[in-house]
Structure formats: C-alpha cells, structure tokens
C-alpha cells in the first residue's frame, strides 16, 4: 500500500487522520504532522461552518431593514447577515424575524418545522385562561342581552381576575 499524502501541503506523508460524522455525512481529512500542528487542532469541520452554508441569503419580508436592505431584528439588533454568518440567534423574537431563512434550515437539520414535544405549564395555563376568557366574554354578552345583571356582575368579576392573572404573566 502506498503511503497517503497530506491533503493540505500535498508533499509529506499524512500521519494524522480525522474522521467526523455530522449531519449524516462522513468527512475525512488526512494531514501530515506539520500541517496538523499548523492548523492547531482547528482542522476539524466546524458545525457553525456547516450551518452557515445551509442558511440561504434571502431577505425576510416584513422585518425592519438596514441601509443595505438586509432585515434586522428590532429587539436584539442582529442582522440577517450576522445570523447567516454565525448560525446563532440573538433573541426569541429572531425566530419570527428570520423565519423565512430559518424554515429551510430547520427542514434540512431536523427534517421538520413543527415542535411535537413538551409544552411549558405556563403556556398551557395561559392557553387555558385565554380560552376561558373568550368563553366568559361570549357568555357576558348573552346575559347582558337577557338583562341578567346579577349574573353579568359575577362574570365581569371573573373576567377581571383572569385578565389580571394573564397580564401578570406577561410582565
């Protein structure tokens, strides 16, 4: 078997072999000791590089744009270009602002774009409270129409409590 030649300098024998499996793709590099040292252990494939390549350079409609015309998150201030370069987000709001760029990325990485796991209790209870609030408001309308003012007062009190709780959760 003939000795393997370094993939970087193409001169010396490759003695350092790196194999990595990422996103289902096996990647190998073969380097001589000198080149491996020069790379300072950084010759591995970075996950950021891979992800950055998966993000398309598209504009997100509806987002505030910078002078250059690229969208920027009004809350954390990161631009689409920064998101694309680092493949990292700056705040929860970015998931909305950069949605059109994120969806194809999520599809490629996870093969899905819809969460199917755990839901925080706070979210569950908020949804429950909002549903109850909507129901109470409909009920209020009907009892007011039927002039049952005692019942309407009770419902109004309950609405006030629920609204108070929901507002508290938002602060």
């Amino acid at each position, binding site marked *: 078997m003939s000795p393997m030649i370094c993939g970087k300098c193409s001169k010396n024998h490759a003695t350092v072999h*790196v*194999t990595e499996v990422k996103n289902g793709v096996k990647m190998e590099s073969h380097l001589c000791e000198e080149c491996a040292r020069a790379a300072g252990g950084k010759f591995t494939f970075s996950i950021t590089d891979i992800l950055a390549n998966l993000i398309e350079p598209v504009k997100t409609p509806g987002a505030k744009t910078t002078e250059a015309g690229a969208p920027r998150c009004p809350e954390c201030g*990161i631009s689409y270009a920064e998101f694309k370069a680092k493949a990292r987000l*700056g*705040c*929860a709001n970015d998931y909305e602002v950069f949605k059109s760029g994120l969806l194809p990325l999520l599809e490629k*990485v996870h093969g899905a774009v819809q969460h*199917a796991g755990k*839901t925080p209790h706070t979210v569950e209870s908020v949804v429950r409270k909002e549903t109850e609030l909507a129901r109470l408001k409909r009920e209020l309308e009907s009892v007011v129409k039927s002039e049952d003012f005692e019942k309407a007062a009770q419902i109004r009190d309950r609405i006030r409590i629920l609204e108070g709780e929901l507002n508290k959760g938002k602060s």
Partner: protein
Amino acid sequence: MTIDELVQQSGEWLKGTGPDSDVVVSSRIRLARNLSRFPFMTVATPEVRSDIQSFIRRRIEEGLGPRRLQYFALSKLPPIDRQLLFERHLVSREHATGEGERGVAVSSDETVSIMVNEEDHLRLQVLRSGLQLEQSYEQIDRIDTDLEQHLTYAYHPRFGYLTCCPTNVGTGLRISVMLHLPAAVLTKQIEKVLGTLGRLNYTVRGLYGEGTSPIGDLYQISNQVTLGKSENDLISEMKNVIPKVLEFERVWRHKLADDEPRKVEDRVWRAYGLLKHARVISSEETIEQLSYLRLGVYLGIIPQVPMTTLNDLFIFTQPSHLQKIQGKALESAERDVVRAEFIRKRLAAL
C-alpha cells in the same frame, strides 16, 4: 459541598453499576432552555449576563431548594477548579474555559448539573451510570417542570423551546451515550459502526484525543434531531439503536478472545503490567492502557479489578484532579510521575 469536597468523592455515574455498564459507561440527557425576558447569550452585554445569572441562581436556589443543588459561580473560581468540573463532566469545556458571568448548580451525587449562561441561559443535565435513558429523562423532566414554575421560558408554539443555535430548537433535548468499543476498534469494524450511526442521524465523536484519531476507544453517540419529535420518541429511537451496537461489540469481544486468545491476553496483561509498575505515564497512555484493562476485566482475563476502580482511574488521573489531590500546581512532567504513583497505589490496594 465545595470543590475540595468534590475531589474526595466520585459521582454516581462512576460507580459502573448501571445497566449494560460492560459497554455503556454513562448516559447523559440535557435540555437547552432560555428565558423569555432576556436576550440570548450571543448579544448579552456583561451587565445582562450578570442579571441573568443572579435571576436564575435565585430561582434555582428557591425553586429547587430541597434538592440542595450547590451553585458555583465559575467566574469566581480559579482555572484549576473550573477544569475539575469539566473533568467531572459537570460542565462543558467551553463553560470551563469561557469568560464572563456564568455558573453551574450541582447535586451532591453529581447526577444533576445545571449550567447557567453557557450557549443558552440554561443547560440542564442528568448524568447516570450505564444505559439509563428513561430514568435520566424522567429526572431532568421533573427538574425542568419544577424550575418552570419560577421562571418563563422562551417558547414558540411552532418551534418549541427556543435556543440560541437552531440545531437545538424544539425539545432542546440532547441524549448522549458514552460507549466503550475496544473490540470494534481492534477488529476495524468501528468505521462501519460510525457510518451507520451517521446515516441514522446520530453524531458520533471520540471522547478523548479530540481533533485527531480518538484514543481509549470511548465514543459518544448523540441525537442530531431535536425538532418535530417528542422527547419520548427521541428516547425510544435511541433505545432501539444502542442495544444493536452493544450486541455487535460483545460479539466482537468474544470473537477476538476465541480467534486470537494469546494476542488478547498478552495485550491485557501488558496493559495491567504497565499501569501497575510504570514510574512515568502520560494522560494519553493511561487512557489507552485502561481501555485494554477494561476489556480484560470483561473477558475475565483480569477479574480482580472492579469497574469503580477503572472509572476512578479514568477520572482521577486527569490533570486538574491530580493537582487538587496533591494540593499544588504541577507541571506536565511532574504530573506524569504523580499519575503513575496514583495508579500504582490504586492497583496495589486491590
């Protein structure tokens, strides 16, 4: 519990008593979480980082109080103590060497650790001995649910738990199993195993000797997908895949012993002799020889070495551990001498 007390004990996952611990060293489950009211770490200023840490620390201490998690503010610890937490698998390498206000809350049996201000505001992890995926998930899920009563997570009905890196979004769940695969390596089947797992969307990496070829035959297998599947589905899938790898490894171990008994015995006894008598030994050589010793224990060639001792030798011979045990800073060459002495003593005591 202080860092010095931590050095004196060894964690639950090192006991080597979990199911399938002949091949599975440990199971680790982690959840990535962020708070809705703060920006992510990528854009957090030093002041915001500091606010996030105090906010979360208070909630961990009040909310999870009865569990008695010990909080360590990493920015206030000397590098050697941070390195120790990394060597114990309680924090990531990035968390140990990083900068800025950050910390970790650790349970006294070391099964639970909650990293604060790592890549995400919160990284909750459970680490247990052997293959214990469901038990580990139940434990971390309970902690997550308890914690959530005291703070509001960044959550989106479509994307689930929002994370700084889109590769973690959804469940924020990463399941990692650390496997010892010496026979797969010796029989040169390891590439096949890694390739297959890669095609199944699992990430595999060597635990030691990062960047170059792995040493010590220890591989960590993790799920890649975090979105679009429930936590239970992700756990079940992993639970279906891992036993196949274990089965292959066991078959190869016995095949090795049957086909080339002298060669295997020689390798194991040499490893034992080397570890028992060496006067100077590097970290790399220790990890490599311990791998053969572990194989020898499994095959009954050297039955007298308990799994706990093997695991302890892995952990306590790391640079920071040796220095903490000695109570002073040691240069690399000094460590090699101290390491050899430590191993000799532990093996002589059997």
